[in-house]
């Protein structure tokens, strides 16, 4: 009723998809980090290029300022122009230092900057020279030098080199920007690829997980179902138990009633047999007195009648004694260990005279020791053996063989004789009380012996039966429980 719940592992494919998913996510994160680092580097380079170009402009500006001031001084010889000239020269030096620092290690650019510096210094030398000439009063000579366009030539060269330098910076920037945009394309491509991988993985995962999930849901449903069934069967079980308890109670009641009934029956048998004795005794007592007092006045017929009365009262006394003993079976003592071989020997001893008289042969297999009622077991052997001796054929001595067969709980004893045998229709009857099959004349008895045996065997939770063929002997079998029947008795 309860479904077997398998703990299903996720399929291998699912793990593969999960792996791809994670790899793609890691890739995206790495790429994003890389590209952002890249972008900030590119931004720095652009700024740097512009800074270099800016410094160059400033540099050229300072040179031109110096040139303009020098020209003004030469033409006017006004010393007011000298101050801006010297300021521009000083400014140039600091701007150049800044430019040199910005350019850094690029050797070509350094060389160009150095060239610019060299040309600028030559130009400044030439301008200093002309200013000195004016201050010494050689204005004409200074103007001649000024008019040679030498200063203009310097300036053009400086500007040309500065142009190269700026162009080279632009060039470098463009190159770097190009490589940066290539990188960006690659990164975007990779991110897109990772996205695709993620999508495929997710799709695959959902595909794989869905049946598992569906199965889980189904399992839960069936689990609930089986829980319900379980509760139901528990309820049924409780009901059955209740019924069983009821039956046990009824059975116990029945057993109690049976025990009470058995007790009453035994008691009845005892009281009846006990009380029957008294009137019987009175009858036989007074028949005796009658014979004593009037015997000499009785004829032969009367004496015969008295003989019949005596015989009957004796017979009845025996029957009553048997009934009394029967009602007392199993009440004399508690069960004890009984060695059946020893019990058999005791019995044979009791029957010694009968065995000798009939010339009987008795053989026996070894018998076990069981727990039982000693006196009753002796009586059982005595009755069965006495029967075997009693119903022997007229013309041959009795041969009695006792065999034994054991199971775990029971012992079966078989007593085989070569007697007159028992007709099949009588084989059950013989175990009933007061049942005699044979004419009193040929075989004497009260018909109690085998009823005794039946009762004793019952007492030991066993059975008794006979196999027999008329004229060919009988085998009486009886079983006895080896142990613990007193406990069964106590429970029953």
């Amino acid at each position, binding site marked *: 009723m309860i479904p077997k719940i398998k703990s299903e592992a996720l399929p291998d494919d699912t793990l593969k998809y999960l792996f791809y998913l994670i790899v793609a996510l890691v890739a995206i994160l790495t790429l994003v980090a890389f590209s952002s680092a890249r972008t900030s580097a590119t931004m720095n380079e652009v700024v740097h290029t512009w800074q270099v170009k800016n410094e160059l402009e400033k540099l050229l500006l300072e040179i031109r300022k110096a040139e303009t001031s020098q020209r003004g001084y030469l033409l006017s010889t006004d010393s007011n122009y000298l101050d801006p000239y010297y300021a521009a020269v000083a400014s140039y030096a600091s701007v150049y230092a800044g430019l040199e620092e910005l350019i850094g290690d690029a050797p070509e650019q350094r060389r160009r900057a150095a060239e610019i510096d060299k040309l600028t210094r030559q130009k400044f030398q030439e301008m200093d020279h002309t200013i000195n000439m004016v201050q010494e009063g050689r204005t004409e000579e200074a103007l001649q030098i000024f008019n040679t366009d030498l200063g203009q030539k310097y300036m053009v060269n400086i500007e040309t080199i500065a142009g190269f330098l700026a162009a080279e910076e632009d060039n470098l920037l463009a190159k770097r920007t190009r490589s940066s945009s290539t990188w960006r394309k690659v990164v975007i491509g990779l991110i897109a690829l990772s996205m695709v991988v993620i999508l495929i993985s997710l799709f695959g995962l959902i595909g794989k997980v869905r049946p598992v999930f569906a199965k889980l849901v189904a399992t839960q449903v069936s689990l609930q179902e089986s829980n319900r069934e379980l509760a139901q069967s528990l309820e049924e079980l409780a009901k059955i138990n209740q019924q069983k308890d009821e039956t046990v109670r009824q059975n116990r009641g029945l057993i109690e009633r049976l025990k009470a009934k058995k007790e009453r029956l035994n008691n009845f048998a005892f009281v009846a047999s006990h009380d029957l004795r008294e009137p019987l005794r009175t009858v036989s007592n007074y028949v005796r007195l009658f014979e004593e007092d009037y015997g000499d006045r009785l004829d032969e017929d009367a004496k015969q009648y008295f003989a019949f009365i005596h015989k009957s009262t004796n017979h009845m006394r025996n029957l009553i004694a048997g009934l009394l003993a029967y009602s*007392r079976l199993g009440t004399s003592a508690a069960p004890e260990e009984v060695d059946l071989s020893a019990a058999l020997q005791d019995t044979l001893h009791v029957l010694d005279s009968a065995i000798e008289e009939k010339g009987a042969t008795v053989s026996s297999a070894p018998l076990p020791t069981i727990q039982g009622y000693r006196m009753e077991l002796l009586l059982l052997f005595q009755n069965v053996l006495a029967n075997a001796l009693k119903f022997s054929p007229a013309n041959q001595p009795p041969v009695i063989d006792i065999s034994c067969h054991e199971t775990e709980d029971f012992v079966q004893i078989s007593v085989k004789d070569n007697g007159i045998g028992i007709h099949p229709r009588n084989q059950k009857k013989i175990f009933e009380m007061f049942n005699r099959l044979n004419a009193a004349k040929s075989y004497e008895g009260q018909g109690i012996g085998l009823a005794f045996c039946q009762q004793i065997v019952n007492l030991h939770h066993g059975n008794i039966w006979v196999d027999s063929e008329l004229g060919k002997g009988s085998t009486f079998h009886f079983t006895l429980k080896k142990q613990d029947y007193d406990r069964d008795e106590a429970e029953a």
Partner: protein
Amino acid sequence: MIAMKRKLKRVLLIDDSESDNFFHSRIIRKAGITDEIKVVYSGEEALEYLVTEMVQGGFPSPTLIFLDINMPGMNGWEFLDEYDKLAVMHKGEIILTMLSNSIDSPDLEQAKVRGNVAGYYSKPLEEEYLLEILQRHFPDYLEDSSLPASEEE
């Protein structure tokens, strides 16, 4: 007939059965062991008889009592309980013997543990029983011929 040197003073029969009393009286009389047989039909009657002074003076103090167990009203055992409480002069030198309908083992066991019960016999009372009782408890009363051969040696 049992050969006696002298007879027992008095024998008491306690039994509710008239036919048994009659039969037992006859056996005792025929055996000739006493001249006085007193018959009572219940335990109560027996107790009353034992404590009642006789016309000629003294208490009955029977030498031998036969007591039936099964009686309506006070049974044999109950009689014994009451008898134990009697004064010594009422008991006298008395041998109590139980008579029963059957040799039933529980009764026999109980009789054995009763200190004041000298014997236990099944009905009917026979002359053999009487002889056995006399031999065991009253050998002085018997002629030598009535004593068992073994005891003479």
